[in-house]
């Protein structure tokens, strides 16, 4: 807001509120992350220690070699990459279609994409579960890749549409007049220009697959397919006594790569999000 002189007391108050909210945001994760480096006895002690007294990497070794295993992480990577691939292909094509062609039913279709966010996933998953069991898609990577990819595709299409709209049509037209086919023009002229959009779609879709629990808990049953989210849940559920330190190490391994990727791409991330969420 435009006010040249702001009293110091007000500034302090503003910083105070923002810092308190930041602590609230960090606190639960901080506790999980530090517990990942604490020996078992220390995680059960009261009062909890702010900084691990005897930091250890043993918890990570236990996660990798114990009942958690590395397989759930590998599964999550496969599912997330697949989801990103599906979302990129679908939304790069559809975004182009919506941007460059004025076909009948275009506006109603674009609008109906916005409805998808309001459809409760669980409600859809009951018929999906039955269909997938009956047609042999249950407990496969493909089931999760398709469902994760389709679920995020409408949002990604809106995102891509925004990027295509920012590129003048004359560029492809020139290429096509020079004898390029439309697909060649799309591949060689348009795609390189919308690559930030494709990057944003890839991050969003990867994150969607990586964080998904609801789809996976319903559509998987074997440890061979199960992503880390479901493995975490099963281990908390099946044991009456929770091994906080091991589960914290697993959570640490799940969240830290996302944080790093996010740190690198955060500019695309935030602009992409608000761009797709609010279109005027």
């Amino acid at each position, binding site marked *: *807001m*435009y006010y040249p002189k702001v009293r110091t007391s007000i500034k302090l108050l*503003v910083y105070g509120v923002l810092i308190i909210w*930041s602590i609230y*945001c*960090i*606190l*639960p994760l901080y*506790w*999980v992350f530090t517990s990942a480096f604490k020996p078992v006895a220390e995680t*059960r*002690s*009261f009062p*909890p220690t702010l900084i691990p007294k005897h930091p250890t990497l043993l918890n990570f070794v236990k996660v990798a070699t114990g009942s958690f295993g590395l397989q759930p992480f590998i599964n999550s990577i496969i599912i997330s990459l697949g989801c990103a691939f599906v979302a990129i*292909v*679908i*939304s790069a*094509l*559809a975004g182009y*279609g*919506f941007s460059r*062609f*004025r*076909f009948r039913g275009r*506006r109603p279709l*674009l609008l109906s994409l*916005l*409805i998808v966010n*309001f*459809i*409760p996933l*669980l*409600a*859809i*998953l*009951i*018929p*999906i*579960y*039955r*269909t997938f069991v*009956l047609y042999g898609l249950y407990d496969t990577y493909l089931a999760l890749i398709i469902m994760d990819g*389709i679920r995020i*595709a*409408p949002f990604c299409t809106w995102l891509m549409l925004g990027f295509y709209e920012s590129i003048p049509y004359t560029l492809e037209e020139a290429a096509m007049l020079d004898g390029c086919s439309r697909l060649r023009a799309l591949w060689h002229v348009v795609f390189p220009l919308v690559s930030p959009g494709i990057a944003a779609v890839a991050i969003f879709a990867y994150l969607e697959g*990586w964080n998904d*629990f609801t789809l996976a808990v319903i559509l998987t049953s074997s440890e061979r397919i199960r992503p880390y*989210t479901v493995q*975490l*849940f099963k281990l*908390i559920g099946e044991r009456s006594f929770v091994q906080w330190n091991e*589960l*914290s190490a697993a959570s640490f391994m799940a969240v830290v790569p996302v*944080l790093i990727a*996010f740190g690198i791409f955060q500019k695309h991330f*935030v602009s992409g999000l*608000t761009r797709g969420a*609010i*279109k*005027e």
Partner: protein
Amino acid sequence: MFAQGSKKSIQISKNAMGYLFVSPLIIGLGLFMAYPLLDSIRMSFFKIELMNIRLATFIGIKNFVRMFTSTEPSFWGDTMRITVIFVGACVALQVGIGLGLALLLNFKWLKGRIIFRNIFLLPWITAGVICGYSWRFVYNSSTGVLNYLLSLVGIAPQAWLSNPNLVMLSIIIANIWKGTTYSVLIQTAGLQSIPDEIYEAAYTDGASPWQSLIHITLPLLAPFLFINLLTETGDTFNAFDRIYAMTRGGPLHSTEILSIYTYRQAFVHGDLGIGAAAGLFQIIIGLILAIIYLKAFRLRAY
């Protein structure tokens, strides 16, 4: 005449090609969104058990009758009451706090804006199940950090997740942890769409900061607030993983919001028919929200 004809044929081929490009999206949504949506209507009139999934027996509206007349938990008295409290509290807090934080982050003199924003994004990019698990850890009654912090100011330890009177508050606090960030982002985008000149003009006309907030910022932010309200309502209404990972709807169904109820009926009790009926109920509420959203959403540019 000839020219007109050829122009028209280009137009038609362009249209047909447009359908080609959007067809993977439309086919995907049709098969994996629209079809299950219709299938859930059909399934809600059948008795289908998880253990014997091929068998579907038509039983009319019995699933709905059983759902609406069930006791312990009663559908309207417990499940829906809990859902409304949960959604109402979370949405009000998430949109309200989101507005407040977005206003603070928008001060021109603020330093470290990007740092604050990135910290606020942490909960939002954390998987729902890890969010639920982290908060379980914080709430743990014997070793949790929350009871420790409260003991420093002389408050007795509480059973945050097993005391039926406290658990709703606990899951609301955990849910707004994850949900508020989205509001901050949307409303920041809204605030940035308001040109500085308006504030400068108001300032030279002698408006106080409070007056420009009430008479400039809030009216211009209203569409963003409204859209934010609807998306948060839809999102909170469908919240599942973070709550289920924390409490599994317990203790004694005291946090069993509608989505957990649907899951329990279908996949814990193994009655897909009732699950589909509950799901249909969720879908109808979701579609009502979606229609309001579409009415509010203006397709100006496209």
